[in-house]
């Protein structure tokens, strides 16, 4: 019994978020309609507590030996890797809730359901980063997915929101069918669903059995792995499984898009890295070329499509596909595993800060019913609202990867991993893709600073405090991660090492 309680203790942040979601749902029942705005504040509490717990746990391990605990057998792993990704999810969620406070009220969305679903989605993400077993991975994937499908369509009265969520749901359920078929085949080939044992105590795991029984060319196993990759690639918005992204990102309510683009993608990559580097590390020669091709396709097509967009929300949607491509480069660098995993985590955190920050500015400039999202709405923004323009400029040059911003270092570490793994071609494509992305990111800056509008056409911007706080936090993170990266980087590297602690 005592072990069970201790194991539950390792899940503190997850449980806090889950209880928070239940509390929000219950409070929603008892609060009168006019008072429901407090629910957003209520939702921030468990997120903040969980973030504090996670940061403390990471702090306690930095410098000393990293701790790794198996929870419930080997179903979940509480290691610096999962803690590091928890930081990403919680930061994305806190920023997402801050963006929502005003929006939910203005658009008259159901507050209780909105914040409870956000918390459920965060819970699913955190479980996904922890899971080291395929059934657990699948259930967390679905907890996350179902919550996000509904969040995308929570603006029930707007046809585009309903359309976005139905499209997302149908394609997502289709993709999860592939994922689960893949899991079944892998289970059939190996007889287990446990991915790997980081402590090396048990050999009857997928990674152990591949070596022991020499399953390198096993058709069932390879087919299963391929289907698994398809299922996760869908969630991570990787070309050619990206068809849903632009429509869903455009149709979903803006704060949901911001939260999704950062959180869901980070969760998908967290599980992806654990799957490939943990469970299937001995098949690296097989999956590396596949990831190579996917990375090139994702970077090229994501950037090519982003260039053509006139709507800023849609442009950010396509550019987030390109960023998934950069993350794939890190995953493909599996011969430099220790650096590669750390760079995935670091980039996920930087993308969260700059991506959510950019969406926050969209909310500041945007008006009721999601108006004012065309590029032309940013004309002369600098002269009217210098702070908003400066923040947007910062996020844009960070997304473009200019030095002294978080985006630059994120890309730098990914390039570093790619070069160490002798993926020179992929590194070149990444560099070229970034140069192309300068065009559409800097175009926003050009519209804000170099064009003028007549006084009559000047539109007001939203001045909600919560939005200002979110923008300030995101901007500070972008600068801090760009100028003083050492702490975050040390944590990311520790996370990378503990994913494979036995010197693989």
């Amino acid at each position, binding site marked *: 019994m005592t072990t069970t309680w201790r194991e539950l203790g390792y899940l503190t942040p997850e449980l806090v978020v889950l209880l928070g979601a239940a509390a929000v749902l219950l409070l929603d029942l008892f609060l009168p309609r006019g008072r429901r705005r407090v629910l957003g504040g209520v939702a921030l509490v468990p997120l903040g507590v969980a973030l504090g717990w996670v940061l403390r746990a990471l702090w306690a391990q930095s410098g000393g030996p990293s701790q790794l605990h198996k929870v419930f057998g080997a179903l979940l792993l509480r290691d610096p890797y999962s803690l590091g990704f928890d930081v990403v999810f919680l930061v994305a969620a806190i920023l997402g809730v801050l963006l929502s406070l005003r929006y939910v009220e203005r658009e008259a969305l159901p507050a209780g359901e909105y914040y409870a679903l956000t918390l459920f989605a965060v819970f699913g993400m955190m479980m996904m980063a922890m899971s080291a077993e395929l059934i657990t991975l699948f259930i967390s994937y679905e907890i996350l997915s179902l919550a996000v499908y509904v969040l995308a369509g929570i603006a*029930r009265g707007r046809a585009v929101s309903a359309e976005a969520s139905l499209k997302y749901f*149908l394609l997502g359920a289709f993709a999860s069918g592939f994922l689960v078929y893949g899991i079944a085949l892998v289970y059939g080939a190996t007889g287990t669903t446990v991915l790997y044992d980081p402590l090396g105590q048990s050999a009857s795991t997928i990674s152990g059995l591949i070596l022991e029984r020499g399953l390198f060319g096993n058709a069932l196993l390879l087919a299963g792995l391929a289907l698994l990759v398809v299922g996760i690639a869908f969630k991570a918005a990787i070309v050619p499984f990206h068809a849903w992204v632009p429509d869903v990102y455009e149709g979903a309510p803006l704060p949901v898009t911001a939260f999704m683009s950062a959180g869901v993608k980070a969760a998908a990559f967290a599980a992806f890295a654990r799957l490939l580097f943990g469970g299937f590390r001995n098949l690296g020669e097989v999956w590396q070329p596949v990831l190579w091709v996917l990375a090139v396709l994702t970077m090229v097509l994501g950037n090519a499509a982003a260039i053509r967009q006139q709507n800023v929300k849609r442009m950010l949607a396509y550019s987030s596909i390109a960023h998934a491509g950069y993350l794939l480069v890190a995953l493909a660098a599996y011969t430099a595993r220790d650096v590669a995993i750390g760079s995935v985590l670091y980039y996920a955190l930087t993308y969260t800060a700059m991506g959510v920050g950019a969406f926050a500015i969209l909310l500041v400039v945007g008006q009721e019913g999601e108006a004012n999202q065309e590029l032309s709405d940013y004309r002369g923004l600098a002269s009217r609202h210098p702070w908003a323009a400066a923040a947007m400029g910062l996020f844009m040059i960070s997304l473009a990867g200019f030095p002294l911003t978080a985006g630059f270092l994120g890309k730098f570490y990914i390039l570093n991993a790619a070069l160490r793994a002798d993926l020179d071609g992929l590194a070149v494509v990444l560099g070229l893709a970034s140069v192309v992305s300068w065009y559409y990111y800097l175009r926003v800056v050009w519209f804000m600073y170099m064009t003028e509008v007549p006084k009559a056409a000047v539109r007001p911007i939203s001045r909600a405090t919560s939005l200002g706080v979110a923008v300030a936090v995101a901007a500070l993170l972008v600068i801090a991660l760009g100028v003083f990266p050492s702490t975050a980087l040390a944590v990311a590297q520790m996370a990378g090492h503990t994913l494979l602690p036995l010197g693989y």
Partner: protein
Amino acid sequence: MEIPLSWYLILAAILFAVGVYGALARRNAIAILMSIELMLNAVNINLVAFARYVTPRELTGQIFAIFIMMLAAAEAAVGLGLVLTVYRNLRHIQVDEINLLRS
């Protein structure tokens, strides 16, 4: 004579393929949902067959099949809710005619 494992796998593969075809070819959102359920049930056949033939002493496969049934129910609940929302907005659920986005 005992039925070999491969028969179950072939049956599941055919069912899965039918589901995939239905999900891609049908235009009605509810028909697509039904096709996806078919895919999940194909996986259940696989899992139970593997549990019987590969790991006869463990319950992993059966338990997973039960999890998938539960999940299919949750998915259907959410999916039908979303279909209803779209119907209230557009008065139809033909997915190829739902194209407010994609400007």
